[in-house]
């Protein structure tokens, strides 16, 4: 796992001490690991760790719905594929 992605995962785990781990395909929104109030903190962190500038107005929720999607959209080794409409 990329170091940046690990930081993102750690950030979520710190806020949900009841969880030991997060599966790559776990829906972060449905499972309330991220909601609209923590979302902004999450995006700022994602911007910092991935180096990708994120425009929240056009961000597709599916791009951040799971750790797997986050890895594909923001931490792909072929360069950052920006998940925006």
């Amino acid at each position: 796992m990329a170091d940046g992605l690990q930081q993102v995962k750690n950030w979520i785990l710190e806020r949900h001490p009841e969880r030991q781990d997060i599966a790559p395909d776990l829906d972060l929104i449905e499972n309330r690991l991220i909601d609209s109030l923590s979302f902004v903190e999450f995006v700022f962190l994602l911007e910092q760790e991935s180096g990708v500038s994120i425009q929240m107005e056009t961000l597709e929720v599916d791009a951040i719905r799971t750790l797997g999607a986050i890895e594909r959209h923001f931490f792909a080794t072929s360069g950052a594929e920006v998940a925006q409409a």
Partner: protein
Amino acid sequence: MGVAAPLPVTDRFMEVLARLSERSVEDYYNPYQTFQWPETLEENRFWMTPELLTVFGTEHYDRLGEETLQRLSKWESVNFYSLNVHGIRELLIEVVGRIHMPGFEVPSDFFHHFIGEENEHMWFFSEFCRRYGHKIYGSTAMRADAAWEPEIENFLVFTRILFFEELVDHYNSRMAKDTSLCHTIREVNRIHHQDESRHIAFGRELVSLLYQRMCQAVSAERVREVEAYLKRYVVYSVNSLYNPHVYKDAGIADPLGLRNALIADPARRAHERKAIRKPLAFFLKTGIFSDDVLPVL
């Protein structure tokens, strides 16, 4: 949204509504002709009252130096007006969705004034941002929540609006009186403060009634969940003032680091409490909050 239960209106509510509607008609002005917009605003002065800056009261305030602080005040003011633009945009969607709908028959007439005035506020705030900052900072709102019951949603919509208006009003009333700020900035803040005093008075009455209606419709456990959510919303709103994009525009190194440091800095809590003193007192008085302990997001 279609809730059939009528609002538990009181004589007091009807009197307040009639008085505020009358004042909206009497105080009506044309915002498009009200402001004189100079070509530019002076760069080498404060655009925001220094005590309202997000670094105020911390070591960063002393470290940054006057020139950076002035630059920061420009971008923090553009961020403040941008938050207003997006806040109004979102609240209008919610109020338009409820006007002339079951459950809102009584306040619908005032909603017309509210929607009209809020649209005009959104215009002059966006005008300020585009003229003097050449941009509006992006919205940080994201719909990523599980749905609440309709009565809770109704209560939350107007409570969020009220809190947002009260928070903004703390800044408006302070800057309207700050003679060290330029005329345009003082006027934008003064006029908004004047209109918002009506909206806040209305919001307090409506939220009190919606709270009663919600408490009758859902369990006590659910009401406690609503309180916990609202407390997180209060912190979220306060945190939206610490925008890393603003720090970057002001030329400050490690913008996200500064945001995180300020949010974690105990020296900021007293200043934040000052900004939210009035809505917090209202939430406690009405029982919406059982205590004034706020969470860390």
